């Protein structure tokens, strides 16, 4: 499957990936309206981690053996057999945070604004390229096929 590949040596810490992720997952999908009127409801599903000049944007790795799917008690977290994308069915999620506990990358976040549900990267399934990749000004995120074996031997 195609995954988001991180090149931390070129991440400039501008956080445009986070901003465009928030817009993508807003109601209006319009940047100014989303930030001025809807911001309370949206948190970015990609996170920029920074220590000194090292930074990188990380989002759900869509693991081959996704532990969050095993840990989910309500069956909300699912890995699509065809696409490999791990998504959380927000109607089923009950906000027990089990997935957050087991996620080895710490990329699942609590979204407590509305209903207690988790918020995670859905790889922008309706887009050709995820918006974080598309809007990275320095191509520090790349969307490409990654060998699943690398994931399994984690």
């Amino acid at each position, binding site marked *: 499957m195609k995954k988001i590949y991180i090149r931390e040596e070129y991440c400039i810490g*501008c*956080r445009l990936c986070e901003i465009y992720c928030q817009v993508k997952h807003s109601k209006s999908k319009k*940047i100014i309206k989303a930030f001025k009127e809807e911001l309370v409801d949206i948190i970015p599903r990609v996170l920029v981690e920074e220590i000194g000049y090292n930074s990188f944007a990380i989002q759900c790795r869509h693991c081959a053996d996704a532990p969050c799917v095993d840990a989910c008690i309500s069956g909300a977290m699912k890995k699509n057999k065809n696409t490999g994308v791990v998504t959380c069915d927000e109607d089923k999620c009950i906000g027990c945070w089990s997935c957050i506990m087991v996620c080895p990358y710490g990329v699942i976040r609590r979204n407590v604004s509305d209903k207690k549900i988790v918020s995670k990267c859905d790889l922008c399934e309706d887009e050709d390229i995820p918006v974080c990749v598309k809007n990275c000004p320095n191509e520090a995120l790349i969307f490409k096929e990654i060998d699943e074996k690398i994931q399994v031997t984690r």
Partner: protein
Amino acid sequence: MALKLNQSEFEIERDPEKCISCQVCVRQCSNDVHDFDSDNDTIFSDDSSCVGCHRCESLCPTGALRIKERETQFKTNYNWSAGHLQNIYRQADAGGVMLTAMGSDKPYPIYWDHILFNASQVTNPSIDPLREPMEIKTFIGKKSDRLEFETNNASGKNSFKLKSKLSPQLELSTPIIFSAMSYGSISFNACKSLARASQEFGTYYNTGEGGLHKDLYKYAGNTIVQVASGRFGVDIDYLKKGAAIEIKIGQGAKPGIGGHLPGEKVTKDISNTRMIPEGTDAISPAPHHDIYSIEDLSQLIYALKEATEWTKPVGVKVSAVHNIAPIASGIVRAGADFVSIDGLRGGTGAAPQVIRDNIGIPIELAIASVDERLREEGIRHRASILAAGSIRSSSDIIKAIALGADAVYIGTAALIAMGCHLCQKCYTGKCNWGIATQDPYLTKRLNPDIGTRRLLNLLRAWSLEVKEILGGTGINAIESLRGNREHLRGIDLSDRELSILGIKHAGEAW
């Protein structure tokens, strides 16, 4: 602290309707212009620190920012311009030499913009370069006085073999080379982009006086190594890695002036590459202390040729000064295989403003007078001429070649292709575009994959345009254009200027 009398050069306009306080501008500015106030979720911008690099404006996702040149608030005075006042205030504050960077921005005549190019009509057919072959391959190096052949009649058929030994040449797929920019004055990622683009396109880049980083050895076949007055990074491996060697005497932006890379930029990597201790200032003396005459220069040229076993061309770079024609003649007679001439508007990473803006002559006049002099003396074939100092477009290239250059050097244009916005603050080491800096926060902003791609695109675009212009004139090889001043006409130029350029005025036919 006493009052500073300077006015801000730029004005930052932030549209509150559009600003979403995402703080991209805050995170991107190395001059700390933008400041986020979390109490009321607003961003305050301090105009006085803005250098006008347009990084924030380019990255703002909502287009909320406009960086405008501030209209001067000084009383209009045609003698005491705002620039004079600002400089005096600054110098009265600090008591030092005014530093600046990039090429001169003063309104000296730009002769490129006063030269028009010819095209075919009726009497000779123009050529469509998309359908017919068009040769822009260029060779740099000494050409033979004459060629001798051996005739072989043994098998009954006449066959010829070249008897003369040819001098080493640089083969350029397009008459464009990337100018000398050292690792130190620009970031490693910028050097790497230049090196990779040269290799992929089949042209060359120049190391400047920065030595050659080991990671760039793989691009050695496309590297011109420079030997300058400080001799930084020069050893036998360095010389052998180069496809050609260039002795740097002067630079267009600062003729007669040496270089100074401040110690804080001499990181571990740079200290290894330049072969100097970490953190020490890298000072290039103004003259080469072993070159006080053409004879001394000749010694160095032949020493370098000997050291590299006569396998590569050795050239000399000088800035265009008043006596450039006899100087170039001396350089050719000293044995140089190419002469690089850097004009008045040539760029730099740091130079005293008074030098940059007042010393030297425009490259257009220098090319014309050097080409003319070398032809008169019958030694034009003994060296190639590389023209540098503000080549801004493919038409500048065409005009430079028609005036007599063999190829051009592009430095500023290459940096602009990689993102440079000509803010002229290279010497601060705070380049927001990750080019003229060694700060690890900033250097990663230039992804060499993107840099290489953009440089390749520029080379490709300009090469296509050069072919288009050539085709329009009915010329199918750039060789036929070299020194072909009949194809040029001056416009709005005096008789004196026309005679120096060696061209007719527009409207004058054969």
